[in-house]
C-alpha cells in the first residue's frame, strides 16, 4: 500500500478516484471533523488530529494530481492494484473498518500515530511556508501596486504642473505682447498730444506777441500781473508763469529782429551801389561809343549807306544811354531812400564798390572783395548829374562832352581843344601824347583846310600807330 492509497483510505475513497471527488469528500470531512463541533476537549483534540490526517491526505493527492505530480490516466500509482498486496489488504481493512467520519473508538498503534504526527507537522510547515510565501508575494504585489500608483500620480502631477506652467507662460507672453502694443499706442498718442499742445501754445504765443500789448501803465494789475508794467501774455499770468524768462525771451527776440533788419538794410545798400556802378559803366560805354560813332559819321569818306547804319547804331546807343540814366537815377533814389537822404544830398563821387576810386571817399575799402559787406551807408553818395565819366577821370576831358545832354561833334571837340581857356592841361597832354599833337596837323580857326582833310591826316597818323587805343580814344 503506497502513500496515495493511504491518503485515499484516510479520505474514505477508492484508489483512483478523481480529484473532483477527492475535493468533494475533503470538504465534507472538514465540515464533519471541525474541532468546533467536538463536544468536549478530548473530542476536540481528537478531531484536530483527524483533521490533520485529512489535510495531509488531501495535500498528497493534490500534489499527485498537480502539474508535476506524475498522475497518469492508466497505470498510475494512485489506482487500485498498483501497490503491494499488503497495501491492498490494508486498504480493504481500512475501507471496511475506518470509513469517513469521526471514529472516536478506533485504536491506533503508537508507530502509526508518530508517523502521522510527523507527516502532519511536515505538512503544516510546508503549508505555513507556502502561506508565508503567498503573503510575501501579496505584500510585494501590493507594494508594487503602491509604487506604480505613486509613480503614476507623480507623473500625472508633473504633467499637470507642466500644463499649468505652459498655461502661465502663455498668459504672461500674451500679457507682454499686449503691454508692448499698448505702450506703443500710448506713446504715439501721448507724443502726438504733447506736440499738439506745444504747437497750439506756440501759435497762441505768436498771436499774443504780434498783437499790440495793452497799456500797462493805465491797467495796473490784472493784465500785467506785475508792478513793473511789462506786458505779460495771459498764459504766462497763470500760476507758475515766469516774468523774467518772458522778458528775457522778448528782449532776445527784439534783438534778433533788429539784427536781421540791419543786415537786410546793409545788403540792400550794397546791391544798390552795385546797381549804380553798373549803370555808370553803361553810361560811360555808351558815351564812348557815341563819340566814336559821331566821328565816323562825320567822316566824309564813308558812304551814305554806312552812315545810315552808323546812325542806327547811334540811335540804339542813345536809347541805351537813356535807359542807363533812368536806371541810375532810380538806383540813386533808392540809395538815398535807404540812407535817409534826398538824392540831391548825395555827394558827387564816382566810387564803384567794385573798382574803388582815388577821387573821393570810397564806399567800400579798395582792397576788399566786390562781394564783401558794404561799407558805411552814410558815406558820400553819388549824384548822376555831376558824376564824371571815365574821360574825366582818365583823360581830364571835362568840357568835351556832357553825356546827359548830347554827344558833341568832332568839330566842337576840336574847337574846345583849340581854346586854351577850356582845355585842361591834362587833356592837351593826352592828345599830344596819343596823336603826336594836333598842332602839327592844323588849327581849325586859322587853317583853310576842310574837316575831311583833317580826318585824312588823322587816319594816316592812326594807321601808323598800331596801338589799340587809337580805335577807342
Amino acid at each position: 500500500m503506497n502513500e496515495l492509497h493511504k491518503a485515499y483510505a484516510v479520505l474514505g475513497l477508492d484508489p483512483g478516484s478523481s480529484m473532483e471527488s477527492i475535493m468533494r469528500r475533503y470538504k465534507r470531512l472538514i465540515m464533519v471533523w471541525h474541532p468546533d463541533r467536538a463536544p468536549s476537549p478530548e473530542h476536540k483534540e481528537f478531531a484536530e488530529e483527524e483533521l490533520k490526517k485529512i489535510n495531509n491526505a488531501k495535500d498528497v493527492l493534490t500534489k499527485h494530481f498537480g502539474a508535476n505530480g506524475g498522475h497518469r490516466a492508466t497505470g498510475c500509482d494512485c489506482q487500485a492494484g498498483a501497490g503491494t498486496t499488503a497495501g491492498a489488504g490494508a486498504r480493504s481493512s481500512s475501507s471496511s473498518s475506518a470509513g469517513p467520519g469521526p471514529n472516536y473508538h478506533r485504536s491506533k498503534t503508537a508507530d502509526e500515530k508518530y508517523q502521522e504526527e510527523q507527516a502532519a507537522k511536515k505538512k503544516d510547515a510546508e503549508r505555513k511556508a507556502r502561506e508565508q510565501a503567498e503573503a510575501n508575494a501579496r505584500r510585494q504585489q501590493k507594494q508594487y501596486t503602491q509604487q506604480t500608483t505613486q509613480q503614476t500620480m507623480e507623473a500625472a502631477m508633473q504633467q499637470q504642473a507642466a500644463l499649468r506652467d505652459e498655461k502661465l507662460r502663455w498668459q504672461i507672453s500674451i500679457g507682454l505682447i499686449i503691454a508692448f502694443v499698448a505702450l506703443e499706442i500710448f506713446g504715439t498718442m501721448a507724443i502726438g498730444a504733447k506736440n499738439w499742445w506745444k504747437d497750439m501754445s506756440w501759435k497762441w504765443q505768436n498771436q499774443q506777441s504780434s498783437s499790440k500789448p495793452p497799456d500797462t501803465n493805465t491797467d495796473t494789475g490784472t493784465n500785467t500781473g506785475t508792478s513793473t508794467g511789462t506786458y505779460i501774455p495771459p498764459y504766462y499770468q497763470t500760476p507758475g508763469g515766469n516774468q523774467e524768462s518772458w522778458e528775457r525771451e522778448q528782449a532776445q527776440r527784439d534783438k534778433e529782429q533788429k539784427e536781421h533788419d540791419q543786415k537786410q538794410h546793409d545788403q540792400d545798400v550794397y546791391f544798390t551801389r552795385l546797381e549804380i556802378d553798373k549803370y555808370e559803366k553803361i553810361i560811360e560805354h555808351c558815351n564812348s561809343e557815341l563819340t566814336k560813332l559821331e566821328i565816323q559819321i562825320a567822316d566824309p569818306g564813308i558812304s551814305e549807306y554806312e552812315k545810315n547804319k552808323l546812325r542806327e547804331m547811334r540811335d540804339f546807343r542813345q536809347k541805351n544811354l537813356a535807359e542807363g540814366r533812368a536806371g541810375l537815377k532810380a538806383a540813386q533814389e533808392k540809395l538815398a531812400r535807404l540812407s535817409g537822404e534826398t538824392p540831391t544830398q548825395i555827394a558827387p563821387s564816382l566810387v564803384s564798390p567794385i573798382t574803388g576810386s582815388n577821387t573821393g571817399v570810397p564806399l567800400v575799402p579798395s582792397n576788399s572783395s566786390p562781394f564783401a559787406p558794404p561799407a558805411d551807408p552814410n558815406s558820400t553818395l553819388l549824384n548822376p548829374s555831376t558824376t564824371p565819366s571815365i574821360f574825366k577821370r582818365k583823360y581830364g576831358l571835362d568840357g568835351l562832352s556832357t553825356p546827359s545832354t548830347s554827344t558833341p561833334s568832332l568839330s566842337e571837340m576840336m574847337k574846345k581843344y583849340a581854346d586854351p581857356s577850356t582845355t585842361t592841361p591834362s587833356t592837351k597832354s593826352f592828345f599830344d601824347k596819343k596823336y603826336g599833337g594836333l598842332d602839327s596837323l592844323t588849327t581849325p580857326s586859322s587853317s583853310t583846310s576842310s574837316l575831311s582833310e583833317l580826318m585824312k591826316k588823322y587816319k594816316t597818323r592812326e594807321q601808323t600807330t598800331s596801338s589799340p587805343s587809337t580805335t577807342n580814344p
Partner: protein
Amino acid sequence: MAAVGIGLGIFIFLLVSAYTSEAITKPDNTAGCLPGLIAAIWVAWPFFHHAGVSRYNFLHPVPKEYKTPIKQAFAQIRDIISEISYNFGDKWHVSTADVNQRRILASLRFTDEETKVEGTNLQNIHTRKERVQRLLEMEVQFKDTGNDTTIVQFDFHPRVEGAQWYACDHIVSGLVQRVEATLGAGTERGQPADTKIPAPPWWLVGLGALGVFSLGSSIMTAVFK
C-alpha cells in the same frame, strides 16, 4: 524656416526701432533699439523652434515597419552600409553590427573643402579653400514584430567642422532613400516630434519683460520730460 525667421526678425527690428525712435522717443534716437531687438527675437523664435524640430525629425526619422523578416532586413542594411562609398572612397566604419542586440553602429569620417571669403576691405576680398573634417555617426535599431515584419529606426549624429552645418544632410537623406529602395516602402510606426509652437520659454518671457520695461521707461521719459 530659419532664414525666414532671420529675415522677419531683421524687418521687425528695423520697423519697431525706427518707429519707436522716430515717432515716440524722438530726441533719443537709440531708445528704440532694445525694444526692436527684443521684438525681433520674439518674432523670430517660433521660426527657429520650427526649424529646430524639423532638423531633429530629419536626423531622427520616425521608425518604419518594413515587410521583411528581421534577419533579412538586418543583412540587407548591413550590406548597404558596407557597400556604399562617397566622394573619395570614404566608407562607413561599422563598429557594431550585433544581431542579438539588433543594432548597428557606424560612423563616416571624411574631409571636405569649404570656401571662405576673406578680406579686410573691399579691394582686398578674396576666397580661400580650406579642408574641414566631417563626422557622421549612425545608429540603426531593429525590432521584430513577430509577423515577418521589422521596425527599423535610424539615428544620426553629425559633427561638422566649419560653418556648413548641413554638410552631412545629403548623406543622411541618401542613405535613408537607399534603404527604402531596398526594403520597400515602409509604414511609419510612431509620431514625429511635434512642430506645434509651444509656450515661449521662460528666458524669452524674461527678455520680453525687459523689453516692455525698457520701452515703458523710454516712453515715459519722452512724454513727461
